[in-house]
């Protein structure tokens, strides 16, 4: 197996992008990554396109074929990868394995989603199609609803409090104001959403016990990377970012069939595989992008990955240990909470943000000083399909 490195990374600002079609967003992000890799006028061997809802929301299928045509990448191999909200990381995994095996040299991975095209009512239903079609979906359960049940159980078992969840919202929205690619660029005022009597109006319960500001927004957006063998990457001017480890694991479709529904086994396994492959420990990681579709998930994942012991993640967040300059800075992009969560794009966007960290390209307000290693967790379904990457800076 060959070592594989990321040589190009690009993203378009997430948010409500009424002016762009899904295909336009995918094309813009792809061109940014190709230009960043210095491949502006060249082709690639293959394209892996991550998207969850093109068929349902845009009534458009086989979109990878359409994208290579738009980008004049013909006759490159092209596949669309659909794995729910973990589609992005799944597409990267496909590219990684293809290059590592020696089959392809240069691969473009792009993820994108256009969710604001439909009403919130429809978007909620679209995401809920991931739930079990007989045992869950007919009841009206939503992903926030699953997260609500999980949160109450996690609070009872591991002592997470609303104060801990609030610390995640405040940090991630603050980081969003510093990230020009973020969907939510508004800092939260603790008084207004928590302490004051108006908090019940400003920050109402959304999926009990989760409140409005515990949830990520519904976003449009796209992100892309270009990968190639490390030996080729070393000849380029920018520091290559090595994909040092990856892991993926699955768990039962329904939460009720897990022996302990608070135990996110697929997160533990995916991160363990990624760290072991990279020969690193959780304490070796400089910066992480975790899948905080709900604030509780940032805390739970920080424990399952091994940054903190069970029961310590919430306290660590409240104590500032996950902020810039803390023990392990998490979601300095603003995370899904503020960067946004265009489902197919998220797993790729997480890796793009880590690439920027490891190349030391970010402004001081978001850059982890001398970052050498990064970890991502991309969480599909309600933890029934999870991927993790460990990335490492390589000096040019």
């Amino acid at each position, binding site marked *: 197996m060959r070592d594989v490195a990321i040589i190009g990374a690009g993203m378009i600002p997430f948010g409500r992008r009424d002016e762009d079609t899904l295909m336009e967003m995918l094309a813009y992000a792809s061109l940014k990554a190709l230009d960043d890799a210095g491949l502006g006028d060249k082709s690639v061997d293959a394209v892996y396109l991550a998207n969850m809802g093109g068929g349902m929301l845009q009534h458009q299928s086989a979109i990878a074929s359409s994208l290579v045509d738009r980008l004049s990448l013909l006759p490159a191999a092209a596949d669309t990868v659909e794995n729910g909200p973990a589609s992005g990381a799944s597409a990267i995994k496909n590219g990684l394995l293809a290059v590592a095996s020696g089959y392809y040299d240069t691969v473009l991975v792009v993820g994108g989603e256009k969710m604001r095209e439909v009403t919130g009512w429809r978007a909620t239903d679209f995401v809920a199609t991931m739930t079990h079609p007989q045992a869950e979906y*007919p*009841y009206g*359960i939503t992903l926030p609803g699953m997260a609500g049940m999980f949160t109450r159980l996690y609070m009872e078992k591991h002592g997470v409090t609303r104060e801990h969840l609030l610390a995640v919202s405040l940090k991630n929205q603050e980081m969003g104001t510093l990230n020009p690619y973020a969907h939510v660029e508004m800092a939260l005022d603790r008084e207004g959403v928590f302490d004051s009597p108006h908090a019940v109006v400003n920050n109402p319960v*959304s999926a009990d016990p989760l409140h409005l500001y515990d949830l990520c927004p519904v976003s449009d957006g796209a992100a892309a990377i270009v990968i190639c063998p490390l030996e080729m990457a070393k000849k380029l001017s920018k520091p290559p970012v090595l994909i040092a480890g990856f892991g993926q694991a699955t768990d039962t479709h329904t939460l009720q*069939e897990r022996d302990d529904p608070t135990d996110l086994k697929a997160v533990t396994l995916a991160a363990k595989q990624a760290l072991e492959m990279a020969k690193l420990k959780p304490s070796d990681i400089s910066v992480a992008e975790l899948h905080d579709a709900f604030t509780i998930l940032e805390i739970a994942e920080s424990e399952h990955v091994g940054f903190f012991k069970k029961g310590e993640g919430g306290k660590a967040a409240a104590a500032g240990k996950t902020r810039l300059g803390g023990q392990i800075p998490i979601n300095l992009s603003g995370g899904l909470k503020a960067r946004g969560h265009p489902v197919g794009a998220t797993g790729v966007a997480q890796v793009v943000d880590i690439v920027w960290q490891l190349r030391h390209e970010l402004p001081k307000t978001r850059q982890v000083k001398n970052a050498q290693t990064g970890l991502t967790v991309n969480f599909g379904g309600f933890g029934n399909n999870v991927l993790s990457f460990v990335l490492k800076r390589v000096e040019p």
Partner: protein
Amino acid sequence: MKKEIAITAYKCRKCGKIHYPYHDRCLECKGREFEQIKPEGDVTLLAYTAIFNLPWGFDQRYLILGVAEFENHVKAMGQIKVDSVDQLKAGMKMKPSWEPVRVQYGEDVYGLKFEPME
């Protein structure tokens, strides 16, 4: 008229593990033969939430949902007939029923509902 709870759970003939919903192989021992069983006995509430952003297809303002376990270990999701989650507590005994849970294409879709015993 009270309707029978039309849920079928599956008990592995090899190891006895109870499954709901259906799996083609047992999650414990990979056995493929199952005895069909009905959820029976006392029902205990395990988890619950109230959601205020409902998916397409629901007209009400909010929905209270939960997962409960029957005495014979069948666990299932259902809608909960209370006005607020303040009336709920994990571990409380519930009364199950089979009622319309949503309307699709103009037809009632039936499913599990729970309400506290008291």
